[in-house]
């Protein structure tokens, strides 16, 4: 980060990093060559980020699709260990994560600290879900006939996670998607870009197979005007989770029907995702950023990362 080191009286010129994208286990620069500055609350330059284009997104999806089959075939025990390893790798970089959240997210140290603790704990929790979710979400069904009938849990495929605001929610979603055997494409907006990219680095130096986790950073305007449309229409993406800033009207899904004009920032992305996916009927889940990460460590959330398959087999011959 921008630690203002320099024990001597000489002012030191900082080495400011340009963070690259993370696709298929490698770190390409964006295809467009476009970068964006990341500044702290005071407006000081912290780092440069690559601004992902539509082509970067398509490549990330291709990488995810390529990696997903083998990842899904790994045993749940193995997947759980890999997700846990990710938490181990990140734990030693906790200070760096806190600083990343604080600097880019514009939150206080205490809040950043809580956010990172939540994120890491969510990864640990999700690691534990890998071989248990099927027991809760699946079932053996007592049908009125001579059949074995069971409903089993299968990975959905490629999961896109669109994140702004809540680093801990995005982390929980990544852990949940991985634990269930999916590959992930994360599209992060600048305020959570650094923690997501640190997570990407931890993936690269732990046991996560290349392509299972891909991280793109995007300009918010580019996300709304262009990338969201690709996320909605790309047929290799099976599930979309988006954490978007709260807009009062549709908040909390209260019983009353949504009305009025939703906040400008969130509504277009949510609507673009939902309208775009109407054509291919992929699963879309819109969440408010700032939602409690703890509530994500639940069967209900895991059920949004999977498909169910019911199998009938006669037991009389």
């Amino acid at each position, binding site marked *: 980060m921008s630690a203002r080191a320099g024990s001597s009286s000489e002012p030191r010129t900082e080495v400011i990093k340009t963070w690259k994208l993370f696709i298929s286990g490698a770190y390409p620069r964006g295809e467009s060559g476009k970068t964006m500055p990341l500044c702290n609350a005071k407006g000081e330059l912290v780092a440069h980020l690559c601004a992902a284009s539509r082509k970067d997104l398509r490549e990330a999806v291709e990488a995810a699709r390529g990696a997903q089959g083998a990842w899904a075939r790994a045993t749940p025990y193995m997947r759980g260990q890999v997700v846990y390893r990710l938490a181990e790798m990140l734990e030693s970089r906790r200070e760096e994560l806190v600083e990343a959240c604080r600097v880019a997210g514009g939150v206080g140290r205490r809040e950043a600290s809580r956010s990172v603790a939540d994120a890491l704990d969510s990864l640990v929790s999700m690691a534990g879900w890998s071989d248990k979710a099927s027991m*809760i*979400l699946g*079932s053996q*069904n*007592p*049908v*009125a*006939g*001579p*059949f074995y*009938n069971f*409903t089993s849990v299968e990975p959905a495929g490629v999961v896109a996670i669109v994140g702004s605001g809540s680093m801990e*929610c995005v982390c929980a979603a990544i852990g949940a998607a991985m634990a269930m055997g999916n590959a992930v494409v994360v599209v992060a907006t600048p305020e959570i870009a650094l923690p997501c990219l640190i997570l990407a680095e931890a993936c690269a130096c732990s046991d996560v197979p290349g392509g299972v986790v891909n991280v793109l950073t995007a300009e918010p305007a580019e996300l709304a005007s262009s990338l969201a449309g690709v996320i909605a229409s790309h047929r290799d993406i099976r599930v979309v989770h988006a954490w978007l800033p709260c807009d009062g*009207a*549709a*908040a*909390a*899904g209260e*019983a009353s*029907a*949504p*009305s009025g004009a*939703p906040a400008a920032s969130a*509504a277009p992305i*949510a*609507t673009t995702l*939902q*309208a775009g*996916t*109407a*054509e*291919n*009927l992929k*699963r879309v*889940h*819109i*969440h*408010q950023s700032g*939602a*409690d990460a703890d*509530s*994500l460590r*639940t*069967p*209900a*959330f895991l*059920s949004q990362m999977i*498909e*169910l*398959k*019911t*199998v*009938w*087999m*006669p037991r*009389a011959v």
Partner: protein
Amino acid sequence: MSPKARTAIRMTTPDPGTAGATALAPWDYAPAPESLKVAIAPEHQLFIGGDWVKPASKAWFDTANPADETVLSRVAEAGERDVDRAVGAARKALKSWRKTAPLERGKLLFRVARRIQERSRELAVLETMDGGKPIKESRDVDLPLVAAHFFHHAGWADKLRYATGGDESRPVGVCAQVIPWNFPLLMAAWKIAPALACGNTVVLKPAETTSLTALRLAEIFQECDCPPGVVNIITGAGETGRMLVEHTGVDKVAFTGSTSVGKRIAAACAGTGKRLTMELGGKGPHIVFADAPIDQAIEGVVRGIWFNQGHVCCAGSRLFLEESIADEFIARLRERMQQIRVGDPLDKNTDLGAINSAAQLATIRRYCEAGVREGAECFVSGGPLPKKGFWHAPTLFTGVQPSHTVARDEIFGPVLSVLTFRTPAEAASRANDTPYGLSAGVWTSKASKAYEMARQLNAGVVWLNCFNEFDPASPFGGVKESGFGREGGKQGLLAYLRVGGKGER
């Protein structure tokens, strides 16, 4: 084959001694019409807020018996104000219904299940008259399942926390439910029973060609002292459905029907915060390996495509035969097709009833013409069809290429397309080569092969050595463009609950 007593479809099996004989002697059955006469009122109003009300739209339409084209009754066509009134009634009722003690909600559903059982013959006859399906199917499949659905979900009402894996939950709210004409009363049960068990209120719209049994279900809710407004049933065509799902007072839309309409509804609901479940079309693969029990597989294939005139979203409409048995299997299937009796749906010996509407018949014919035009070989079984009404004989296309229209589009009629394969991997990849993913069937004597195929097939329901089996305890629903959400079992309840976190809108 599955000797399941309750939902079995009884069909005449060819005598093994004569199988392979060139021609079977014609064998006339004496007519065996169902004897129960059902009284049908000349006019059916809307069921809103616990009362029968005339439509503010002042519009009506006729509903006819597709087997003889006689008009059975005229039915109200709900307009904007009627939809508004129904949604308002459901919203008003929600306030107290969601707070009703769960076991009390359950008890109402138990009561309804009992009344359905007691009135099941009447409902079966009415279903057959209004929709054209054979009485033996409405009597032995639809109605027992309708009652079972209410009975099953009645028991869930006070146990929801166990269905969610321990998390607290609350109802979604007012549910707009739009259902198709192929299983009119069964679809109403699939929609209403879980919604009510979970504490929601509903506005249900049946398909315009099959409104009558849903309205009789409304009568049963009245008989059972269902609080006014908890269940509202409004009738009409596509436009009424559109107004209902787009109404701003609706919290959730549950739709069963075609994929194209499902996509339109999903687009209309984008950005509104409404929850959706979609049970849409399919082009189910039915895979028969050389090591399958062939006699039983043939019965399974018949059940897969000629059940309910093929008006089944999960029908096994693409038959994949392992190349080494294809010729023999097709020859025996053709012979078996000749045993399918097409005719008066109220005759207890009828296997294949009337096509639901003139429009659907035209669609099926158009697909058959496309099949012939594109080069597939068409085989049609049976003798002359009745003069009046809408009829389509069992039809088999062979020499079908994966690119043919009859191999790709959902026909929703008694039309089967046959393709071949050589290896299990090829069978799976060709079976999955479709935007749909609702059902699949596999016939083989090797259990390990059966389960490996089940793993590889992209479908929400896989029938191994059986087909078209349904049960309220068994979650049903699709993947890919066959929709999302499940109906039945504990998984089906999640579609009608808001669980735990405040996170999702």
